């Protein structure tokens, strides 16, 4: 394809004085290679010794920065124009930052990282940068597991881990950083041991606490990059805001059932999480993985993408997931990508930010829900123990299980009737409105929704939610009922 490259004035002396040069190429990178093979004196002004574009040199394909597309691999078509535009460096302020020398690698480390070192994109310089880098991981769950393991293996010099949980049986289906021997241990200890085993040359710092508005800024300050492996909205907004306020890149991932998302939110360079989602969803609308399930390998894939982007940030690579939201569906095995734009009205990273310090995120995520239409009547609840007592007394009650049939197969409370949440309204006539009805699910969220739906549909009988669902039943009444 013939593509026109416009040559900036100061470089024309290296291109025989021409201001525009037409080359034949299929990608932007190929076009630049063509250009610099004809005019070899241009090359050193555009590319560094590692043969990548100098970081102040920007290439625009018809007004779009190719770094925001596929970098050098961005396809070009007939009639496209490539513009070469420099960014202008500042002087004094960054001097100290640039002057920092990178740590040396020992012979053992050189051997260990040899597969990195032989690639010019990493090389000695890149590996030393990895050694000099520090990354804070929020959570050592499904996402944190591959993130931590790959960053440790890659030689990221200092890894901080934040978690407050203990390892449970139901974690092991996907949280591969923990093993069966670790059941009941604190996750940060189990994770630390695993990472140390993978790579004894790195430093691991454990922070056993919940991430809060009080400790986030202090924690983030000591790291270059933050990787979000959380599973709830308050913490996700907290991580985002703290990253924006402290100027750190936030490597984001999230998972649900078979679908995953990943992006790099870096306010100085592009959109943040709030530009994408200004408001959290009402609580309960988006089920958690505990409620909706997750394919065990999915966080492995998404977390590996997060690790990949983290390493690229450290290496100074291009084509990061900045302003790009990657969507992955493990069931159909498809990747899709959305372009993101920085929102000038974003309350935290916009032109006139209203959020200048961390807020109460539980409240923020709860308050948004408060504005959503709520049923007038209060939800009536019963505990598992109470329910059992009533059953033993022979009270006339019926129990409706609103889980899915495959969950019913895993475990059930005896004497219940299964009507999955999606069918409760259409099968309302199967529920006797003259008898008190207990509704249950796995943890109590879906059953509350079922009650709300039934009330809205005009169901007249008394509806009571089983607090904690079948999980509470298993814990408090009958341990023979399997927990899942």
């Amino acid at each position: 394809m013939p593509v026109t490259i416009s040559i900036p004035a100061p470089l024309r002396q290296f291109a025989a004085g021409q201001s525009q040069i037409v080359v034949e190429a299929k990608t932007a990178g190929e076009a630049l290679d063509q250009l610099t093979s004809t005019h070899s004196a241009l090359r050193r002004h555009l590319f560094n010794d590692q043969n990548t574009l100098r970081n102040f040199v920007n290439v625009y394909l018809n007004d779009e920065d190719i770094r925001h597309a596929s970098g050098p691999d961005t396809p070009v078509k007939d009639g496209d124009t490539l513009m070469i535009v420099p960014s202008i460096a500042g002087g004094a302020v960054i001097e100290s930052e640039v002057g920092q020398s990178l740590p040396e690698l020992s012979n053992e480390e050189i051997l260990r990282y040899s597969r990195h070192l032989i690639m010019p994109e990493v090389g000695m310089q890149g590996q030393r940068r990895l050694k000099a880098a520090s990354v804070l991981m929020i959570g050592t769950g499904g996402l944190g597991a591959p993130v931590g393991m790959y960053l440790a293996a890659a030689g990221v010099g200092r890894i901080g881990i934040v978690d407050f949980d203990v390892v449970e049986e139901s974690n092991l289906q996907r949280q591969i950083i923990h093993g069966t021997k670790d059941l009941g241990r604190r996750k940060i200890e189990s994770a630390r041991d695993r990472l140390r085993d993978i790579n004894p040359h790195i430093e691991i710092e454990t922070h056993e606490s919940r991430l809060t508005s009080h400790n986030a800024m202090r924690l983030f300050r000591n790291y270059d990059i933050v990787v979000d492996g959380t599973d709830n909205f308050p913490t996700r907004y907290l991580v985002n805001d703290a990253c924006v306020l402290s100027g750190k890149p936030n490597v984001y991932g999230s998972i649900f059932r078979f679908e995953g998302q990943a992006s790099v939110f870096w306010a100085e360079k592009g959109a943040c999480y709030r530009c994408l989602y200004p408001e959290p969803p009402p609580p309960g609308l988006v089920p958690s993985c505990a409620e909706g399930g997750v394919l065990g390998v999915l966080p492995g894939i998404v977390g590996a993408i997060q690790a990949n982007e983290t390493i690229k940030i450290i290496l100074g690579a291009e084509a990061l997931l900045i302003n790009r939201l990657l969507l992955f569906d493990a069931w159909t095995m498809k990747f899709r990508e959305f372009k993101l734009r920085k929102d000038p009205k974003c309350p935290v990273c916009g032109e006139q930010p209203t959020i200048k310090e961390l807020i109460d995120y539980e409240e923020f995520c709860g308050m948004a829900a408060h504005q959503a239409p709520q049923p007038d009547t209060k939800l009536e609840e019963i505990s598992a123990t109470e329910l059992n007592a009533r059953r033993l007394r022979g009270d006339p009650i019926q129990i409706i299980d609103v889980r899915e049939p495959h969950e019913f197969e895993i475990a059930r409370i005896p004497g219940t009737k299964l009507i999955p949440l999606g069918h409760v309204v259409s099968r309302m006539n199967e529920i006797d409105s003259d008898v008190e009805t207990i509704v249950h699910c796995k943890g109590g969220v879906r059953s509350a929704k079922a009650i709300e739906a039934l009330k809205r549909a005009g169901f007249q009988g008394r509806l009571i939610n089983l607090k904690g669902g079948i999980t509470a039943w298993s814990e408090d009444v009958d341990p023979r009922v399997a927990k899942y």
Partner: protein
Amino acid sequence: MIRISQELLNQIREHGVRDYPYECCGLLLGRYGADGKVVKETYPISNAREESAKRNRFLIEPHELMRGERYAMNNDLEVVGFYHSHPDSPAVPSQYDLEHAWPTYSYIIVSTSAGQASDLFSWEQEPDRSRFNQEDIQCQ
């Protein structure tokens, strides 16, 4: 050699003082001639930026430069260089500046301290990128 009027030099100094303690920056618009460059206008970019922008590695982002280029083109001018200030430090380029520059452009640096501008020098990169040479400023 770069030719520039006293008035434009003063504008650069004033911009530096106004943005202190932050770095100021802008474009030099003019024409390339056989005997060097002549500056006809300055095109300020920074206006005492927010704290967060201080962490930017780059003073002038490419989209800002493109805007300036367009303005220059419409006024039959070209970008012939850039100016920026070094608050509380000398008006000489750093190694970092060297790695992030192109030859031919003029890089004017003005040293600023509280309330006043002192040295102002112009620098041009050696075509082999090895160093910056101080460039003669011919004040018109």
